[in-house]
């Protein structure tokens, strides 16, 4: 009898598991019928989380179904996250089209989880219509692997309230911008003296925000000699930069106390008037307005300050990529979908209408709409179309909102190889310098340079 009961307990367990497995299997749906080309589109907004965006997407979907009834769009809420991408991709859970930040492109391509889209990319005219610096974002080994959704360059943003408090405004009420690094330092010192708040900061956990600064100081990170990559940042320029950062902390004390800062932390400090200025890609402003309720009139911006080597800025953006198992019909459908969305080169009237709809939503949310965005297109007509669509929604005070683009600005894309690893190496040095007053900067830089060479350049390339 005891056997029976124990046996039956075990049996029931096994059986119940099996039935549930089967039922789980039964519920999985078949996708679409055979006559249609169906594509899964990622980054689809969730209705309960962002209702405005969801409505926009419904509009895209309606237009798509009307124009291309033979294509079936399957919404997918997949959002890129660095920590889960690999297992998700390895098990085929990535939708046909997915959106990633530019820093991830080469890594995903190297891992083999993105399709080469060069053919369609050229067919739809992106290769000639986009700016060269933007093309760099999606090019790996001469092939195109993504369509830029937007692009931003790194500029400076200023907290108007703190600048006013510190008296750093001109007669018109316009913040007085630092144009070089010595001015930046003086500005930060004034802010700290007058308001007690931090004068300047940057994210210390994500090294890529530091690249603009480093290039402006004249740092060369690597060069290729006879096909072999060599790390070259053990240089006086790099030591100068690190000394400058160290002085901001230990001599002038103008940085926030907290130095382990991710992008989100910097944004929150800035939005809550705890820090007066920071390096920021152009898309930050609206993020802070919608997330932290910052007023758009409390934000002002300018190009990055110039260093000894000039004013360098890094270009970045969000990229649509295509999963490697996508067929050529699906690829075609994806590019048509991009056109409908208004990401394409050609904008027909209905696409312009939908763009206007988007600006209207932003306007109602009191986000900043300016005509000074960095456009990814070099084709004048396309740029004009968007300018016109925006016209009636422009809502920023022109004396505070500047274009972060200036003629003497030099745009640069990521370092060619091992950029992610380089960011970590740089973050480490910066963290050491900011936590250790007596850090031996030349030794640290030398060490980092040789480690980067040994650990990454030698092994990965």
């Amino acid at each position, binding site marked *: 009898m005891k056997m029976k009961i124990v046996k039956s307990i075990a049996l029931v367990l096994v059986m119940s598991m099996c039935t549930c497995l089967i039922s789980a299997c039964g519920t999985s749906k078949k996708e679409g019928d055979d006559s249609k080309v169906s594509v899964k589109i990622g980054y689809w907004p969730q209705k309960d989380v962002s209702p405005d965006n969801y409505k926009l997407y419904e509009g895209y979907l309606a237009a798509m179904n009307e124009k291309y009834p033979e294509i079936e769009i399957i919404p997918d809420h997949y959002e890129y996250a660095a920590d889960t991408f690999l297992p998700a991709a390895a098990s085929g859970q990535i939708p046909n089209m997915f959106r990633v930040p530019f820093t991830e492109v080469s890594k995903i391509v190297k891992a083999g989880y993105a399709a080469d889209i060069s053919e369609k990319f050229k067919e739809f005219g992106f290769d000639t219509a986009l700016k060269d610096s933007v093309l760099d974002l999606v090019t790996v080994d001469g092939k195109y692997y993504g369509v830029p959704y937007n692009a931003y360059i790194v500029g400076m943003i200023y907290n108007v309230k703190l600048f006013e408090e510190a008296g750093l405004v001109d007669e018109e009420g316009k913040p007085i911008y630092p144009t070089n690094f010595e001015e930046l330092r003086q500005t930060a010192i004034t802010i700290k003296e007058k308001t007690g708040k931090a004068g300047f900061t940057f994210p210390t956990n994500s090294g890529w925000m530091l690249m603009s600064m480093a290039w402006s100081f004249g740092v060369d990170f690597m060069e290729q000699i006879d096909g072999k990559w060599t790390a070259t940042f053990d240089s006086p320029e790099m030591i100068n930069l690190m000394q400058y950062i160290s002085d901001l902390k230990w001599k002038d004390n103008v940085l926030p106390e907290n130095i382990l800062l991710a992008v989100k932390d910097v944004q929150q400090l800035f939005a809550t008037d705890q820090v007066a200025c920071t390096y920021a890609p152009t898309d930050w402003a609206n993020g802070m307005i919608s997330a932290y309720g910052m007023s758009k009139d409390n934000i002002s911006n300018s190009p990055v300050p110039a260093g000894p080597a000039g004013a360098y800025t890094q270009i970045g953006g969000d990229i649509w990529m295509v999963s490697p198992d996508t067929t050529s019909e699906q690829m075609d459908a994806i590019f048509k979908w991009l056109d409908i969305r208004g990401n394409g080169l050609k904008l027909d009237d209905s696409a312009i209408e939908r763009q206007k709809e988007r600006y209207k939503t932003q306007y109602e949310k009191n986000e900043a709409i300016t005509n000074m965005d960095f456009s990814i297109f070099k084709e004048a007509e396309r740029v004009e179309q968007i300018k016109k669509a925006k016209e009636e929604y422009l809502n920023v005070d022109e004396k505070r909102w500047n274009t972060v683009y200036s003629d003497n600005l030099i745009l640069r894309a990521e370092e060619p190889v091992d950029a992610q690893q380089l960011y970590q190496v740089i973050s480490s040095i910066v963290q050491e310098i900011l*936590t250790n007053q007596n850090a031996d900067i030349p030794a640290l830089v030398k060490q980092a340079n040789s480690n980067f060479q040994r650990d990454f350049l030698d092994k990965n390339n």
Partner: protein
Amino acid sequence: MKSDVSISKSRIGIHNSMMSDKIKRNITGWLMLLPGCICFLIFVIQPMIVGIYLSFFETKGFEAVRFAGLQNYKDVITDSLFIKTVWNSVSYTFWSIVIGGFTPLIVAMMLNEVVRGKAFFRFSAYFPCIIPGIVTAIMWKILFQPDANGFLNMIFGKLGLGPFQWLQNATMTIPLINVTMAWAGFGGTALIYLASLQSVDHSLYEAAEIDGASFWRKIWHIQLPHVSGLLKMLLLMQIMGVFKVFQQPLAMTGGGPNNASTSIMLTAYNYAFSYMQVGRSSAVGMIAGIILCGFSILYFRVTRKKDSV
């Protein structure tokens, strides 16, 4: 209630009954093991074998591309940070034993004595365990804010101390992360010890009292021997668990400042998920596993020696 075993015992000779008893016992035992074995096989063992396999291959994503022999191992060991991260993991383990190793047992012993308010104290000891891991990390990060508006700096400020740099102080990072881990986990472990302590035969205390044993002698001679088996087991599991730590540093410091809190498993995590180099990640994992095996063999040796003394 008489079961068939005892009936059969009376019918058949004693030798035969023992044989069939053994077989039946084996069948029952294996039936009890079966569901667990299935779970382990599918979700732990098979995936682990695949992972080990991958450590010997050059990988593209999760696919093995080319047999690489020991190249992955060579690459990760020669990394300039490798020794540091191994050392950090050892340091995590050391501090976790210092900070969190015996605290649960002491708390359990104290709880065991309380007459009134026991429910409250038990609840409060267990309370941090209810707090989900992400929440704990977010919360302690806020508490450890290094500027004047951090909670702890505020409290210590009132006492005229600080402000402290907390996690930003490279020498404090690992002990402090251990403090949060101990905070989050000691209650659960304490309850396990408490369950064990409550099964101590009370007549033992009484007998000891007749012999005139003091409070401390009763702990030493009655309670400690009673929980020693459990203590050894839990300490071993703690050592193995903490050596593999990576989520806490990932959430609290990202491994900083300047890799002061990067553990060996955080390195493995970074290889796989920041750089997508699964082969190397698996190799690091394997090395960590080998070190752990060494640890536990050493541990068993040491504890066994003590037993025989």
